[in-house]
């Protein structure tokens, strides 16, 4: 993600401080980022090699791997999910999207870490998700009432983070804190990154910690 684009978003804004997340995020506070499993055999080795070669074919030297969500639209996944099954799936959930994105960025030589989010959603959407996920035999524990657990991926370059939402195929902004799909809470990196901080479009974010981005000034 180019630094120049970051600068465009808040060119005159002073750095803002994040806050501790609210209680709405509590159900997922202890969740760890999803990871594809490997059978330790040719099936998963070839699947992963195919995936990485595909990513290098799609990559134009910049940008996120938008092809992942185009190839595997968002939908239920059963976990544990292995590489050989994931690449043949018709659709994948955000955890699979995020892990594959992580692998792609790392294969490109870019430092990347998992991102966990709790996003605000329409409360009445939960019933649709529960039905779809349970019908596919997948866990729907990610879907709450008015909020949902989500996974993404962050690139870290020169102390700056950019968050790629693999499921949407877009870079996320910490300013998106109001309305549907807005960020109620976010954690960049895991406990192993504790003590590090990164700048996410002007927001100083401690890694490995759940935070709530501040609302930008309007008007």
């Amino acid at each position, binding site marked *: 993600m180019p630094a120049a684009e970051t600068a465009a978003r808040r060119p005159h804004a002073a750095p803002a401080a994040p806050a501790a997340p609210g209680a709405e995020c509590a159900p997922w506070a202890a969740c760890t980022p999803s990871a594809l499993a490997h059978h330790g055999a040719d099936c998963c080795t*070839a699947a992963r090699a195919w995936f990485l070669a595909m990513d290098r074919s799609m990559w134009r030297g910049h940008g996120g791997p938008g092809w992942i969500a185009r190839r595997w639209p968002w939908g239920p996944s059963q976990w544990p999910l292995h590489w050989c099954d994931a690449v043949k799936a018709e659709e994948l959930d955000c955890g699979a999207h995020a892990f594959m994105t992580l692998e792609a960025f790392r294969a490109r030589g870019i430092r990347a870490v998992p991102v966990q989010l709790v996003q605000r959603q329409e409360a009445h959407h939960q019933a649709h998700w529960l039905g779809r996920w349970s019908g596919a035999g997948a866990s729907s524990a990610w879907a709450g009432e008015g909020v949902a657990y989500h996974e993404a991926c962050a690139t870290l370059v020169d102390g700056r983070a950019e968050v790629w939402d693999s499921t949407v195929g877009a870079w996320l902004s910490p300013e998106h804190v109001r309305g549907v799909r807005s960020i109620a809470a976010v954690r960049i990196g895991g406990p192993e990154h504790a003590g590090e901080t990164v700048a996410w479009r002007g927001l100083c974010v401690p890694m490995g910690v759940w935070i709530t981005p501040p609302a930008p000034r309007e008007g």
Partner: protein
Amino acid sequence: MSRDTHPPLTCYLSGVHSGPNPSPGLGVARSLREAYPHARLVAVDYGVESSGLHSEIFDEVWLQRPWKEIRLPVYLAAVQEVLDGGALWIPGQDLEVEWLAESLARRGGALVPPPAALHAVAKPRIEAAAALPFEIPPFVSADRPDWELHAFLREHGWRVWVKGPNYEAMRAGDWPSFRYARAVLADTWGTESLFLQRHVPGAEESVAFCAYQGELLDCVHMRKHTQTHEGKTWAGAVGPVEREVAQALAAVLAALEWTGGGELEYVRAPDGTLNLIDWNPRFPAWIHAASFAGHNLPARLVEAAGFGAPAAAPFRGRQFTRVVMEIPVLAAYPLPAVRDPLDDAAVGSKHPSGMPDLARRLAEARGGAPADPRANGKKHDRRPRRRPAPTPPAAMQWDLDEALVDELPTPRRILLPRTAQERFAQVERALAAGAGGPVELGFGYSVKTNPHPSLLALAERTGMLAEVISGAELRRALEAGFPAERVVLNGPAQQWPAGPEPDGELMAAFADSPQSFARWLDGGPPRARYLGLRLRPVTVEASRFGASLGAPERFAETLAQLRALPAGQALGLHFHFASDVLGPARWFEVFESVLHWAAAIQDGVGRPVRCLDVGGGWFPDDFDRELIPALPERIAAAAEALPSLERFMVEPGKAIAQPAMALVTTVLEVRRGKDGAVEAVVDAAISDLPMAPFYPHRVYGHSAAGAWEPLGGRGDRLLGRICMETDILASDLALPDTLAAGDRLVIGDAGAYDASMAYNFGRGVLDDACC
């Protein structure tokens, strides 16, 4: 009239169409209505189809005659009268801004920039941008020879826009679509002053601003979120302008003494560069979105013009979207009558405000391009300007002089020996430069491009390999003196027609599909030093050739097949795609991805890739200027990805044969139109030049002094002898003024597929295969 006392505001707003490609007048009116609730707002437009005329935001409508028929002095006097009455005029169309700026100079009330400022922001150069942190994407004037335009299109991977001087752009994804776009735009705008500009991928953004007598009053940034199929804004977000841009813009506007609205349209490329596409001398159509984000630019402009402080408006959000809504049509301006449904003419206009007509009127007033021949009942010569001729290959003149062209029966394809020798010498030099490295470099002559014995002999003497796609070509190569170990076999029908096997081992053989490979495994593969598969790159999945890698199952099958090769058999991989279809830069991108696939395959198979065969369809100039200089670096990259690589083979395709032959033809008839256009019917036909529609061919005629010289462009056509509508050999030539029946013309660049794919149609015979 002094405005010190803040007189009641009367504002004329032109350009009020509101459709998928709207003008800004309606948005400006909505912003002014909020800021000056009691203002008298007058909608001005030049066609009753302009939908915004019917909006209730306006107090009055001043409908003008269409630009095609309007009497400019009469209209100018009327505009001056309303301005003298103390009204303001905010034009919403670029060309009307130009006209007002030129006609009214700095008359008060017309909120337009000075003519010099408009000159400084004219496309494509946009000279004023030199002081801004923007880059101008590469461009070329369409008045260059077709040969150069084709090179520009290839250079930028056919991701190029053909643009008019003021409005409208069309994508040119290949040569036929470029020619179509050029013809449409030239016809619409009545000008040859078109240009081609590279497409820049990235985020589309704008900066809208307003300035008064050189002082920047306010500016906002807008990023498109969604857009129409035409690329027009549908939803977006408004925010502050980057400080660096705002400061530079203020300085530039001061230097230009800018008055009025304006918009910079640019693309933020992934590398962070800002690529300026357009500098519009008027507000954008989304300007009211800036107003409800707290920046009412039209009001700031009116305030600066002396009409008092605008009413404050509440902030209502930075993001905006457009909606579609129905409004009553004003009784005074009813819709035009419904067209006869049996009339095939297009319904509606892309330009309801008549901008193409104004463009012609302004060009006529400036003494430039002629006006529409239909306007005011006058007929004009609309023959395009003559464009320069392309540069011929250095040896071409010698070859033509020695071929005794005027004495040959026609149509006749002739070998150009010096030109051919130059092409092979190029390969020879590249082979010499690549010799001695850890990876052996080879070039394959594609027999299918032209199996002429002289060319095959030259290829053999140059040390090239023979690349064949059938048993017939294989035997042809062997007859031409190529030993089996210098033959590379590929293609989907290698076994056709059946015949004796070559005595020795081939250099390489590549199966065209998993099915072909399976047949090899069942029946025994060809004897070849390297055996392998042709790969179909995933970014050119439309290709019919090669093993698809786009699905994990196919990849796993490919690995399984290659693992089944006999022990000790050296593995090779093959990738071909026409470089002139992708453009060299994109071809190199695909090449890089092929290296990743090859590395993944050798890891998965557990057998090293020892031979890589790449190429296909290089345009001669690109082969010389792009591929050959890049080979050392590309070979090194291949060796790094494939550490056991022994041999790197390049198949240049038509790059060798294309310039090496020309088609001589005799003029049968010359038709000179009343508009000056010339059509010549010749005894050659599309069957002799089947690639005529797909790339420009350099055509040579006799100069006044009798020498052969390349012809420029001017819209003259060369028509073939066959009674078929598509039999047009060239459609944009400048034929010699003295051309007459019996004269000879030579069509160059006809040595590759024009030769090998020529057919018998129209000769009164059938090909053997038909019988």
